[in-house]
């Protein structure tokens, strides 16, 4: 029972209270800016959920957050802090879009998987570089993935901006050619942009969960994440596990990239990701690295992302406010002691009773 309650506290209560606290901090900022937080937040809600097509648009933004959140979360489970999801998203988009505009006239059932595989492979290989550097030389993945982010941005703009490489002909702003019609992810709701990628992201959740919790790969990954020395002494190859985990993480980030291309953008410019990969770190933290937790966390970030512009339009509260909310949510999640402290304050009376009872019991034992 106690274990169950502790799980509830750490997996549900802490994130939930953190979100509420994050909105409270945001409200203070809104008041400081001279606006009404209630009006701002109701506009945010309307922009995210109740306006025409708002829910569909929120789910469109949720899709990359789910895949990227899973990417970061799987790294966390092996004790790896993959800050390079953004870069892997770029490389996945690049390799995927190349396949998607190069192939012509095949049915969707062939073209979509081909492009997806190319995108995931690109992300996986890119992330493996950081994994291999860590496994072989002990280079910390935080440093290497950050550095690889810059490399990937520059590689992307070089390829996209250079005639004869990936630059499309006769376009005013640099971008790749459009993908083949067969590679476009089908629309789910006519009149909206919601596409099949959302379903793919939903499917990824149980798959990643199964991988982590039910397979030998996941077991290895968790053992290495918890205690490398014990894993090594038990005959596991820590280096191989690190490379494999980074590859899996990169594959998910690459999938996010190519899904975004096949479902939303249909070509690639050099600013396609717009920080999704960095927000995904927050998503994974809020989800406490649990694949199922990634879903609601991604939905929250998707809603904030999508509702912000309507809020700005309606109430003149800057859309940047959501950055304040996101940041404070993460501070509260990262410091669960704050939430625990808030709850102890409220539970103080019950605790006293328990102590009295124990002291009465003591002499009889």
């Amino acid at each position, binding site marked *: 029972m106690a274990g169950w309650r502790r799980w509830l506290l750490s997996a549900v209560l802490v994130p939930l209270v953190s979100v509420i606290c994050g909105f409270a901090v945001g409200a203070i900022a809104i008041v400081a800016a001279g606006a009404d937080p209630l009006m701002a937040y109701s506009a945010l809600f309307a922009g995210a959920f109740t306006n025409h097509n708002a829910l569909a648009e929120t789910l469109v933004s949720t899709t990359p957050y789910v895949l990227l959140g899973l990417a970061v979360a799987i790294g966390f489970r092996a004790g790896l802090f993959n800050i390079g999801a953004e870069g892997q998203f770029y490389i996945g988009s690049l390799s995927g879009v190349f396949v998607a505009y190069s192939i012509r006239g095949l049915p969707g059932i062939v073209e979509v998987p081909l492009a997806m595989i190319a995108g995931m492979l690109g992300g996986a290989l890119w992330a493996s570089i950081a994994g291999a550097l860590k496994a072989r030389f002990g280079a910390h993945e935080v440093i290497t993935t950050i550095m690889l982010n810059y490399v990937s941005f520059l590689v992307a703009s070089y390829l996209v901006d250079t005639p004869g490489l990936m630059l499309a002909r006769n376009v005013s702003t640099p971008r790749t050619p459009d993908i083949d019609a067969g590679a476009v992810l089908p629309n789910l709701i006519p009149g909206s942009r919601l596409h099949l990628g959302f379903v793919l992201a939903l499917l990824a959740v149980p798959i990643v969960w199964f991988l982590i919790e039910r*397979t030998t790969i996941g077991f290895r990954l968790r053992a290495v994440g*918890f*205690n490398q*020395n014990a894993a090594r*002494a038990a*005959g596991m190859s820590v280096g191989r596990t690190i490379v494999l985990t980074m590859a899996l993480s990169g594959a998910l980030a690459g999938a996010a990239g190519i899904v975004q291309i096949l479902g939303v953008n249909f070509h690639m410019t050099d600013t396609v990701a717009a920080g999704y990969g960095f927000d995904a770190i927050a998503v994974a933290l809020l989800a406490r690295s649990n694949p199922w937790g990634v879903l609601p966390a991604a939905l929250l970030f998707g809603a904030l992302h999508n509702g912000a512009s309507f809020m700005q339009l309606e109430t003149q509260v800057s859309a940047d406010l959501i950055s304040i909310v996101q940041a404070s949510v993460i501070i509260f999640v990262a410091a669960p002691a704050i939430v625990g402290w808030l709850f102890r304050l409220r539970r103080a009376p019950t605790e006293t009773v328990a102590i009295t009872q124990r002291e009465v019991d003591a002499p009889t034992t």
Partner: protein
Amino acid sequence: MRANDGVDLDVSWRQVHALLGENGAGKSTLMNIVYGLLRPDSGEILFDGKPVDLHSPLDAIRLGIGMVHQHFMLIPPLTVAENIVLGHEVANRGVMDLTESSHKVEQLSERFGLQVDPRERIAELSVGLQQRVEILKALYRGARLLILDEPTAVLTPQEIEGLFTIVRALVAEGKAVIFITHKLAEVSEVADVITVMRRGRVVGTTTPKESKSADLARMMVGRTVLLRVEKSPAKPGAQVLKVDNLVVLDDRRHVAVDNLSLDVRVGEIFGVAGVEGNGQNELIDALMGLRSIRAGKVQVDGREISNLSTHARLKGGLGLIPPDRHRMGVVLELSVADNLVLDDFDHPPFARWLVRQFNAIRDYAVKLIKTFDIRLQSPDQPVGSLSGGNQQKLVVARQLGTLPKLLIAGQPTRGVDVGSIEFIHRQIVSERDRGLAVLLVSSELDEVLSLSDRIGVLYRGRIVAVLDAEGADRDRIGLLMAGAS
């Protein structure tokens, strides 16, 4: 959890007060309260007859309470004098006066007979000398009550004698010493008063005259304890492990195992005695493929294994009880069942293709839990929630469960209660009788003496002598452990 429950303890000046109890009996918790590291939920502490309220070690130090922790709190690259004056530096307008510091330290060490060169770097000192520095540090801060937490764990028998002399000198000067230990022999030798703790409570207070070792053991454990391992003479067979001129470097790339040779045969326990830090961990790592070897040969059943991975060695019949359970033996966050298959999880019956087979894992776990008497609520609970003794039984169960032909047992009973020690020793002996070859590496000399059939003494990475355990002379081994030839 109540680590201390209604504890009363009276310590007088000019006395060595031994606090005796098993691991987890609450000795360290009690002393951390006295030293201001933990706050009691109820009760009071009187010092010099006055109630005191200790919020931090700073308060304790101000009152004259000093503590020498089991793991030393010294900064290795700094000198003895610098370490001792740390936090109370002698300085002139912000510039440290090192001559004056050294001088003060010299005066102090002369007064108490604690010889140590103040200009020496801590990193260059032996463990015994480092402990002296810790004691000097406490005295420098004006300690009148000195708490020594398991001070003998890292010392040779001769260094232990030296420590006892120091403790007696301190008491003669009018100070009080609290001596925390789980070793019965030491208590009788050094203590004036003995308080025995069990499960967070004081079982009783006595003196060495009133209570003999066997009585103390019974108080400590709550029942009669076998102080010796019962075993029949070994019937050694063919050679299993043969190590020739092994050289292994430590993490700082210094030679830790230096031309070491030994062999272990079927059905025998070869004990490696030695003070901690003489190459034990590096030897074990090298034998298991966790550390590369610089030179030499390691053969199992006549086959060279130096190039095999840890995985291949485990599959080839090696078993390992790692010397540091929490660091290498278990994954505290994973369940008991997961830990029981930690080195054997990726093939049938525990996995089919890549999918783990939880029913098979659970059945196997339940079987081992029963055979090895691991006390728990459920095989699904995390290992971190088990007691130290049960965690160690789990490690032993995992290794013996795979029926190895060679067991490398590093500190197999460290941090384990007496009941579990007896159980683990019996398991190792009964596996020996069934033909297991055991390489026991322990810094508890008593464990090596009572469990081994042959004893190799390890000093600075070399086996300096091999003796028959039957009739082995404790003092002679102690001298060999200290480097005497």
